[in-house]
């Protein structure tokens, strides 16, 4: 689905991403972990077509990515909800823009609101929400669409353990049923292992691919309990440690 070839990115002459090459298959679910500030968000923005790499090229479905695609959904790290729209309006926004019919509309938003436990706040404005509620609105806004590429930028960081577990398993189901390509940026190693078929560890700034791991326990229904899970978990933690010690 996505192919990046030797992309690099500069902000004011600082190299943020360096010579990053990566191929993501259609229907794949990829988790990305890496030190804070290594360029994960920047990479997702490149995948979304929001920023252009300084050099290198990026293809989505074999065509060069020149501007945002209608079928990509991004849940940004800062939620980026519109303060002038209520929760409901924020969530409906992509449907409006994609000119989905009113009839199809209502059922979909209702289901999404319920799934994310947002029914009681749906007519509030974003500034009236708690952090976790805001984050769930951002997730809801991405999920009402029927995107072929879902980009999650630390989308569960403000959720309590129970809600997070529930959402993770809903998303896994969604991935397995719809085969939407999903990329999860996360700091939670267990989350990466639960959600990612493949796990990419990025190096410190300038960020690039440090190592990728295939996750054998992904298709295991009791993943979190398994032996392999714990092993890979420790391996990932160790890799992260390496990455960060290399830097110092």
């Amino acid at each position, binding site marked *: 689905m996505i192919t990046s070839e030797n992309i690099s990115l500069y902000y004011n002459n600082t190299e943020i991403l360096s010579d990053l090459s990566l191929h993501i298959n259609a229907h794949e679910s990829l988790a990305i972990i890496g030190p804070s500030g290594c360029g994960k968000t920047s990479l997702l*923005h490149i995948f*979304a*077509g*929001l920023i252009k790499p300084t050099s290198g090229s990026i293809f989505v479905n074999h065509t060069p990515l020149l501007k*945002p*695609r*209608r*079928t*990509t*959904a*991004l*849940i*940004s790290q*800062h939620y*980026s909800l*519109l*303060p*002038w*729209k209520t929760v409901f309006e924020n969530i409906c*926004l*992509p449907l*409006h*823009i*994609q000119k989905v019919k009113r009839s199809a509309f209502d059922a979909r938003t209702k289901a999404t609101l319920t799934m994310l436990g947002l029914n009681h706040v749906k007519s509030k*404005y974003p*500034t*009236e929400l708690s952090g976790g509620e805001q984050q769930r609105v*951002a997730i809801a*806004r*991405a999920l009402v*669409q029927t995107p072929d590429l879902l*980009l999650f930028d630390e989308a569960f960081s403000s959720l309590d353990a129970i809600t997070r577990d529930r959402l993770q398993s809903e998303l896994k189901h969604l991935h397995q049923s719809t085969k939407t390509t999903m990329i999860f940026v996360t700091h939670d190693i267990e989350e990466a292992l639960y959600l990612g078929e493949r796990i990419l560890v990025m190096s410190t700034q300038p960020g690039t691919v440090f190592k990728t791991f295939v996750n054998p326990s992904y298709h295991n229904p009791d993943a979190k309990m398994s032996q392999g899970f714990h092993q890979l978990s420790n391996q990932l933690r160790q890799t992260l440690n390496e990455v960060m010690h290399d830097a110092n």
Partner: protein
Amino acid sequence: MRINSLKFSTLYALLIVTVCWYVIHLLLNTPTVPDPLLTFSRLVNLLTDDLLLHLLSSLGRIVVATSIALILGITVGLMIGLSQFFNTYLSPIVFVLFPLPKIAFLPILMLLFGLGNQSKIILVALIIVFQIIITVKDSVMNLKKEYFLSIKTMGATRIELFKHIIFPSILPSLFTALRLSIGTSISVLFFAENYATTFGIGYFIMDSWIRIDYIDMYAGIVAISLLGLGLFLLIQLIEQRYLPWVQLEKGTQQSFLD
């Protein structure tokens, strides 16, 4: 502030202003500051006479001129604020034209658009359109990129970007600009309604002034101010009705410093 408290606060302010006026009247003891009570009773008389007509013709000019200026000003302001191309090639021209004293061009306007209503309305619009351009441009320039993130990935067209992001986020400034415009257009009317018309509150006040009939003059001033105040309150109500989120961003605490 809901409607009731608006009503109350307006009455309160009118009272305070009247008292101050009365005190100044007593202190200065000059015909240039007439007795407010005499003025009000004169105002009532005049309203049943033809002052209402003067007011209405001015109101019409203000409304038309403001509408034209809003449409033009928002368009140009957005063009400059949103596109590097127009910012490079259009904004310097706006900057050069803005400080021009437009009032000096009334003769040319009268040449081009005749002595009638047109030239007056165009003068008013010409003056306030720049205020609106500058306000819109500046507020678009201060737009935050984060709002654009998600909506862009939804594949929004320019029109949708405008409708869902740009327009709502400049609305607060636009209301400010609208308030300022009303103040300005009232002042400009003084000048514009002096020509080739015997209708308009600007004409009425100037005419009373030259006849040094200060009571009439002040009655006219009170009338136009009440009109302006009415427009202000209208804007305020619309704002409270349609921009609840601004209030929310500000927080529930009414006073930042308390």
